[in-house]
C-alpha cells in the first residue's frame, strides 16, 4: 500500500466503515428484537409504534417456567406480602401460579429444553466418536473405492430430512421408537456422522504420519499410537466438530416435528407450537427462545476460527 493516501481513498474508507456499521445494525436488529421482547412488559411487546426503549422486566421468564391460571379473586394483602418477587409479578399480571402443596408447578418448557439437551449431547458424542475412528481409517489406510465411499457418506448428509422421515416414521412405528429419545438420537447420529467423518478427516490429514510411525518403531501398537498420539493432536478438531454436531442437532426441526409430539419433543417444534394456542404471549415465547438460542450464540463465538472449515465440510482450511 502506498504511504500517501489521497482524499478519494479517505472518503472511500469512511463510506465503507459507515456501510459496515449499517450492515451490522441491520443484521443484528432481528436478534435484538427477540432479545428485547423477552424482557418487555406484555403490553409493550406488540405496541404501535414498536417500542425500542422500555424498562426491562423478568416476568416473561417467570411465566415461561410456571403453570398459571387467571385470578378469580385478588390475593389478600398478607398473601401478596408473603409472596416472593416472582409470584408478585404473576399476581400483578392478574394471574396466579398453580401449586401442588406449596411448590409451584412447572410449565412444559424445562422438559422440552432437557429433551433437546439429552438428544443433542448423546447424538454428538456418538457421531463424533464414530466419525473420528472412521476419519482416521480413511486418512491413514489405502481403501479401494475411497472416493466413492466418501461420496456415499457425504450424500447421506444431503438427503432432505422429510424424504428420510417418511420411511423412518413407518419403521419407528413398527419397533415403537416414535416419540422416544432413542429414536431421535439415532437419526441425529446418522445425520451428523457423515459430517463428522468429513471434517475429522481434514483435521487428521493435517497430523503428520511420522508421529505415529515413530511411535510404532518405539514398540507402540497401532491402537496405542492412535489413542496416545493421534487423539491428543486432534483434540481441537474433535472439539470443533463436536460443537458443529451439537448445534445441528440442537437446531433440527423437521425430524423432531414428525417423530415426536410429547414425551421426547425437543424445543424447536415446541416453541412454534405455542403460537397456535389462543392469544400468543410473545414475551414468554421470546424468553424461551432467548434461553434456547443462547448456547448457540456462545458456541458461535468459541467456534469463530473454525466456522469456515465446518461450513465447507473441511474443504477450505484457514
Amino acid at each position: 500500500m502506498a504511504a500517501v493516501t489521497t482524499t478519494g481513498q479517505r472518503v472511500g474508507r469512511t463510506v465503507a466503515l459507515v456501510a459496515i456499521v449499517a450492515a451490522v445494525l441491520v443484521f443484528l436488529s432481528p436478534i435484538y428484537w427477540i432479545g428485547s421482547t423477552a424482557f418487555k412488559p406484555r403490553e409493550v411487546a406488540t405496541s404501535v409504534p414498536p417500542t425500542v426503549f422500555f424498562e426491562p422486566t423478568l416476568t416473561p421468564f417467570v411465566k415461561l417456567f410456571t403453570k398459571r391460571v387467571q385470578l378469580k379473586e385478588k390475593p389478600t394483602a398478607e398473601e401478596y406480602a408473603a409472596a416472593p418477587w416472582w409470584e408478585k409479578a404473576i399476581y400483578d399480571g392478574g394471574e396466579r401460579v398453580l401449586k401442588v402443596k406449596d411448590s409451584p408447578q412447572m410449565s412444559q418448557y424445562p422438559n422440552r429444553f432437557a429433551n433437546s439437551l439429552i438428544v443433542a449431547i448423546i447424538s454428538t458424542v456418538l457421531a463424533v466418536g464414530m466419525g473420528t475412528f472412521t476419519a482416521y481409517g480413511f486418512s491413514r489406510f489405502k481403501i479401494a473405492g475411497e472416493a466413492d465411499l466418501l461420496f456415499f457418506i457425504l450424500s447421506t448428509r444431503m438427503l432432505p430430512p422429510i424424504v428420510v422421515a417418511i420411511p423412518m416414521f413407518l419403521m419407528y412405528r413398527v419397533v415403537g421408537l416414535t416419540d422416544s429419545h432413542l429414536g431421535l438420537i439415532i437419526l441425529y447420529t446418522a445425520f451428523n456422522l457423515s459430517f463428522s467423518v468429513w471434517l475429522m478427516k481434514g483435521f487428521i490429514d493435517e497430523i503428520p504420519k511420522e508421529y505415529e510411525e515413530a511411535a510404532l518403531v518405539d514398540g507402540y501398537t497401532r491402537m496405542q499410537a492412535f489413542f496416545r498420539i493421534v487423539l491428543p493432536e486432534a483434540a481441537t478438531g474433535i472439539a470443533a466438530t463436536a460443537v458443529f454436531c451439537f448445534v445441528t442437532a440442537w437446531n433440527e426441526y423437521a425430524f423432531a416435528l414428525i417423530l415426536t409430539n410429547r414425551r421426547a419433543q425437543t424445543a424447536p417444534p415446541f416453541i412454534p407450537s405455542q403460537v397456535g394456542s389462543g392469544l400468543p404471549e410473545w414475551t414468554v415465547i421470546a424468553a424461551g427462545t432467548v434461553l434456547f438460542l443462547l448456547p448457540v450464540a456462545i458456541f458461535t463465538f468459541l467456534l469463530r476460527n473454525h466456522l469456515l472449515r465446518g461450513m465447507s465440510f473441511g474443504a477450505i482450511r484457514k
Partner: protein
Amino acid sequence: MAALAKLHPGSRAAAHGWSDLTIRNLFILPTVAFLIIFNVFPLIYSLGFSFTQYRASGNKPAEFIGLQNFRDLLADPGIWSNFSTTAAYVLVSVGGQMIVGFGLALLLNRKFPLKGLVTTLLLLPMMLSPAVVGLFWKLLYDPSWGPVNYALGIGKFEWLSHPTNALFAVAITDIWMWSPFVMLLSLAGLSAVPQHLYEAAAIDRASPWYTFRHITLPLVAPILLIALIFRTMEAFKSFDLPFVMSTASVETVAIKLYQTAFQSWDTGRASALAYIVLIVVLAITNIYVKYLNQVKER
C-alpha cells in the same frame, strides 16, 4: 465389501496387537453399516412404497400399483406449481445471498477496528435455528404492529398472507440467515488473492472496475461457485423457514411432501415424490462434491 478386504501391500503390518487390516475394518465398517441401516435401508423401504397405494393412517395393506404414483405426480399441475414455487424461491433467495454475501465480503475485506468481533456478529444468523428464528420473523412482518412495516413506513403491508409477497418475505429471511455463509466463503477467497496482482494493476493504472473484473472476480469465482451450489441445494430442500413462516402461501416441494405424507397420509404417493426429490438432490450433491474436490486440490 470385498473391495475393503485387500490391504495396500506397503502398509506396516504390526508385529503385535491387531493388524492394520483389522483396525481399518474396525474403524470404518461400523460407520458404513450404521449409515446403510439408517439411511439406505429406509430409502429402499420407501422405494417399495412408492409403487403402491398405501395410507399409513389406515389399516389396509399396501396395494401394488406399479408406476401409477409417478405417472400421477408428473401429470399433476399442482406438483409442477410446487416445483416452480421452489425454483422461484431458490432463485430469489440464493441470488440475494450471493449478492449480499459477496458485497459484505468486499466491505469487510480491509483493516478496521473490531474486525474479528464484527465478522463473528455477522455470522450469528446462520448458526441459529431456522424454525425458531423464522417464528420471530413472522412477528417482525406482522401487518398491523410489526417493526418491519413501521421501519419501512409502508402502512399495513401484507407480507405473509399473499403468495408472491410471502415468497419474497421468506426469501428475505433466508437471505438474512445465509448471506453470512456466502460472505465467509468469499472472505476466504478474497484473502487468497495475491497482493502483488493488485500492485501490478495499480502500476498499470487499471481502473477499480477493471481490477475487480479481471483480478478479483476470476480468482474468487471457484469458491463462489461452491457457495452457489451448496446454497442452491439447501434452498431446494427448504422446509423449516417456509413451513413456520407461511405454510399456506409458500408451498415448496418439501412442504408438499410433508403435507402428502403426514397430513393427507397418502404414503405411497409421498414416497414416489420423495424419490423425485431425492434424484434432484443427489444430482446437485454430485456436482457439489466434484467442485469441492477441485478447490481442495488447489
